[in-house]
């Protein structure tokens, strides 16, 4: 078995696209003048006939992708999560989500969350999951490491429906090897435990694993679920977590409104009410190094561990 690769999740984007072409998918990919950051240019170097850059014009990019998809292509578009969907939400809704039940367009938005770092609040997307989960046909995926991001791009590329994949800027620890079989809508349990469940996505998955270590030092058994797919959420995994551990913490690099926490809470109240604590980012950001910002926003193992204890204390 190979070792998990530690890299930024955005670096997996071109790798996923290349895999799709190899697998015979009729892919096109478009960038909007951020391809050296989304890494889309690497795909363009290999397949110049399948890659376009449209300049700084996200709205146009979405429409072009819709036109490609309507002509039978599997169209990927990439930018920063603050602009895609932030700059072009109406185009995504009208030109992609609504036609024919959803055109075959995949948004791969890099630089999600606050770990963009130094660029500051305007570049730090903490609304994108709320926007994208509000579009009916979209799958919404936040991979936790390089391998999962690659497999998520491939999985999204093999469906005929629209999808949103959020990747990140910083290098994050590897969690999975190529043998991992990512499936849209399936959570991955990274650690067993019976006292509480930490449900996280993206960068926060590694933070949750560290929090589970802290809790273990206090003899608290924390289950860790990587809930990479926010929509459709893995209801069975959430229900099992509530039944078997009785307390839930969600953690995401996003507002606590409209993202992972909201999706998990809905499953709980519909099926298995249990105490839940939400960890997220409920204020606009500032500049700093990405790991400093995780501290600044208290997206830390200590905060998650405290949230776990708070949730446990509320068990009946």
């Amino acid at each position, binding site marked *: 078995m190979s070792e998990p690769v530690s890299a930024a999740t955005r670096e997996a984007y071109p790798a996923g696209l290349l895999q799709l072409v190899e697998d015979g998918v009729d892919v096109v990919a478009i960038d909007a003048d951020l391809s050296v950051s989304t890494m889309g240019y690497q795909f363009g170097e290999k397949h110049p006939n399948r890659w*376009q850059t449209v300049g700084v014009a996200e709205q*146009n990019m979405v*429409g072009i992708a*819709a036109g*490609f998809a309507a002509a039978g292509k599997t169209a990927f578009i990439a930018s920063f999560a603050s602009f895609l969907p932030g700059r072009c939400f109406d*185009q995504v809704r009208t030109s992609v989500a609504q036609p024919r039940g959803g055109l075959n367009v995949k948004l791969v938005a890099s630089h999600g969350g606050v770990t963009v770092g130094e660029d500051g609040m305007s570049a730090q997307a903490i609304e994108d999951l709320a926007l994208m989960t509000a579009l009916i046909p979209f799958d919404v995926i936040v991979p936790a490491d390089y391998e999962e991001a690659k497999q998520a791009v491939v999985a999204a590329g093999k469906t005929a429906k629209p999808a949103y994949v959020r990747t990140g800027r910083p290098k994050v620890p590897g969690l999975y090897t190529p043998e991992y079989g990512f499936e849209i809508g399936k959570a991955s349990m990274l650690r067993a435990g019976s006292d509480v469940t930490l449900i996280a996505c993206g960068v926060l998955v590694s933070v949750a694993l560290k929090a589970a270590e802290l809790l273990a030092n206090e003899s608290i058994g924390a289950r860790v679920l990587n809930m990479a797919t926010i929509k459709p959420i893995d209801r069975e995994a959430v229900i099992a977590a509530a039944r078997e551990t009785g307390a839930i913490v969600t953690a995401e690099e996003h507002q606590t409104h409209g993202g992972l926490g909201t999706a998990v809470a809905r499953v709980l109240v519909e099926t298995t009410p249990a105490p839940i604590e939400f960890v997220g980012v409920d204020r606009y950001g500032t500049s700093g190094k990405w790991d400093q910002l995780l501290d600044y926003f208290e997206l830390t193992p200590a905060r998650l561990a405290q949230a776990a204890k708070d949730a446990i204390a509320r068990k009946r």
Partner: protein
Amino acid sequence: MSTALTATVSVDELKDIAKRVRGHIVRMVYAAQSGHPGGSLSAVELGVSLFWNHLRCDTANPAWPARDRFLLSKGHATPFYYSVLAERGFFSTELLAGFRQLGTPLQGHPSMNAAPGIEMSGGSLGQGLSFAIGHALAGRMDSLDFRCFVLMGDGELNEGQCWEAAMAVPHFGLGDRVIAMVDRNGIQNDGFADSIMKTHPADMFRGFGWKVIECDGHDMAAVDQALSEAERPDDRPRCIVAQTVKGKGVSFMENNPGFHGKAPTAEQLQQALAEIEAGL
């Protein structure tokens, strides 16, 4: 081969078709008691000339991959659009009676593939030219020589996305695949375009590297000729700017901002139908 490309229809015949289309438009908006008659009536000659004499399509095989695409970017002009599609034979004119009503495929704004010939969803302005670019690039990849004809309104040109796309068409060398048409009726939702937001469509498209063909949008022969000129290869993409009259053909709707999005009364309908028949 039944792939009935374009017909060659005389100007007189086109005028007769245009009359029927105008009749459908006012009846549909009357029956629905809502909809957009003004910007539908202004586009009639453009649409009729295009669909009968220029657009390569096959009503028996509307998904024919090599067909030319007509993309209604000014999506509120559905009374015009659906009437043209029905008269051209994409679906029965009987469907028009259900326009905007529960259960109809003919929504207030177009829903892609809801009925034959509807190539794109619309309603939120400014999105058609971008869609055309993607479609045309796909056609080039797949060695299909279809063209995309995009109909836009002059009010719609307020939307920034139009200009992102206008800049991209020449950049991608899509001049022989994407043809723009502007229905320059001079009125938008809130009033006269010159008072809401002054635009200069011809100068603006020229500034973005397009060849602009100006014509009287209600002179059928002139429209027909403008479309022929637009089809001729050139190193620039072509944009037809058709000078039109909002509400054309119905005296009380003509140049009247009040009929951008309002239905006639029963009495007004009778007057409108009589005027259309008389060819005012």
